[in-house]
């Protein structure tokens, strides 16, 4: 599996590792580079520099046939259930594809296995010869998952795998993913912008902003004691269903996400940060370890007067004004 080394460099010096059976949640705003990161892990986008290591095998320099072979260990489930399946192929054909490609099994054997997988993800074998347009979003996502686990991979990137689904369906798919993870000892890179879902499924969470990971750590710590102002804002923006907490102040970030092609100097978040200091415009903050586990990249932690490896928690109400 991923070793805890600087394994991936995607977008801009993004590094993380995932252990066997572990789920890493990756959150952030649209355009922050989550998908790119996920795709870089599978080498679906060219990686300019850095290493990707899966189970000790370095993917970085693999190409062509070797890369294709290596891909059987890692799979991906995409966001849009409507476009991630070939509309002109039957469900069974889509699920068989990896089997035929990698195991060179006969069409019949592939089909038998495909039927098993269809049952495994909670569909009926009678669905095998249908076409994707005959399925609901949730069912399609199940089919995509069946395809992803067909080769018993070690690792699956779920790029917003449930974002397009209704709450109830979303939960069904999440439950399925969890079941499969425990059953097959899978590792997930779970990309989502819905922080509530990520909290539920992830062991650890990484928060991206403008192509960088600004904070990472065990899910509990990040959610309960966010150390980066951006994480803080994100968390406060989660719509809260409880009518009792309605009066709580919410941090509304001012302005728009800057153009990723022309990010601000220094800390990328400084243009929208309520705590921005002079130094934030000058230098990119370093990743610093933090109490309770994980790292954060924020000058408040290193150069700031008050925080130093402490969560941001209590400060917010007083210090952050709504925009």
């Amino acid at each position, binding site marked *: 599996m991923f070793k805890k080394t600087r394994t991936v460099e995607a977008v801009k010096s993004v590094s993380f590792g995932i252990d066997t059976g572990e789920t890493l949640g990756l959150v952030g705003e649209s355009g922050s580079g989550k998908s790119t990161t996920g*795709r870089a892990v599978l080498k679906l986008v060219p990686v300019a520099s850095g290493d990707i290591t899966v189970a000790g095998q370095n993917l970085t320099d693999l190409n062509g046939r070797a890369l294709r072979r290596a891909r059987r260990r890692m799979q*991906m489930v995409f966001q849009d259930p409507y476009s991630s399946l*070939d509309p*002109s192929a039957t469900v069974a054909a889509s699920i068989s*594809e990896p089997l035929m490609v*990698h195991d060179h099994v006969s069409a019949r054997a592939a089909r038998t296995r495909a039927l098993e997988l269809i049952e495994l993800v909670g569909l009926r074998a009678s669905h095998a*010869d249908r*076409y994707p347009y005959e399925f609901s979003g949730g069912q399609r996502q199940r089919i995509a998952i069946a395809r992803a686990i067909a080769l018993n991979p070690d690792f699956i990137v779920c790029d917003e795998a449930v974002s397009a689904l209704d709450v109830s369906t979303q939960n069904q798919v999440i439950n399925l993913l969890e079941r499969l993870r425990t059953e097959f000892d899978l590792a997930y890179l779970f990309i989502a912008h819905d922080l509530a879902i990520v909290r539920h499924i992830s062991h650890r969470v990484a928060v991206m902003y403008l192509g960088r990971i600004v904070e990472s750590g065990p899910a509990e710590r990040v959610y309960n004691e966010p150390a980066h102002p951006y994480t803080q804002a994100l968390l406060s923006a989660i719509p809260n269903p409880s009518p009792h907490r309605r009066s709580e102040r919410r941090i509304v970030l001012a302005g728009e996400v800057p153009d990723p092609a022309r990010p601000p100097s220094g800390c990328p978040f400084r243009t929208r940060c309520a705590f921005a200091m002079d130094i934030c415009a000058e230098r990119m903050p370093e990743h610093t370890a933090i109490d309770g586990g994980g790292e954060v990249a924020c000058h408040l932690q290193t150069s700031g007067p008050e925080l130093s490896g402490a969560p941001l928690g209590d400060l917010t109400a007083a210090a952050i004004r709504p925009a």
Partner: protein
Amino acid sequence: MPRPKKPEEPAVRRRRAGRFGQLARRFAGNKPALAGGVLLFVILVVTMGAPLFAPYTPEQINIADRLSGPTPAHWLGTDALGRDTLSRLLFGGQVSLAASALSVAIATLIGLPLGILAGYVGRGPDWLLNRASDILMTFPALVLTIAIIAVVGPGLTTAMISLGIVYSARLFRVIRSATLVVRQEVYIEASISIGTPGRTILLRRILPNVLPPLLIQISFLLASALLAEVTISLLGLGALPPTASWGSMLGQAFAEIRGTPSLAVFPGIAIALATLSFNLVGDGLRDSFGRATRKAEG
């Protein structure tokens, strides 16, 4: 008290059918398309079965019975040489349809693989092929074809090959842009992520998904090519006598248009019906595929 009605029974029963089965169902549900399809089928049957249906051989001359209007012996009359118009129409259809099929086949043979290649590979090959199609598109197809025939010598095959080459540029464009669309579909990326080799992706993923625009384009090109055949034969550059083609029949009829107008009317109708059927089928395919796609989009 609101009394909700019982939901109506679906008008069409849900039936197990593949994607193309679905398509066929939609196509059949589209009246003009169905009419076009039936028409095309009938035209194909009677022309391809010409030896069975035709009352005379198309070259049988009977100068004594020339330029007769429709009679019981010659339902559609005879031409200047006394040949039976109906028989010539049936056999001529073979020639005209085969000629348009030839040019479209050539266009497909060139345009389809190159279009997929350019769309899928991109970069250098794409640039090069695009420029090549730019150049081809810069020539007026008919003028170029006439010029080529004028130097190479007449003959339907030459004409249709050169037309096919010109058409290939059009087809190339359509296939290329369809491939570009398909190429950035997530399911292609999914296949790549699975480790499927490029060749398999091209054949199993891209090709089936560019079939809809291909089929639509082919049916329209067939209509164009048929008209082009007629034009070329009209100018005397097409089918070599005594072979009948709808175009050469129309050309011959033009000489007699005042004396025996029916001579121009029947090939005209045949051409119009065939073109109409191609166009209707093309429209029908587009609508059917279109709806399938829209549905797939949610």
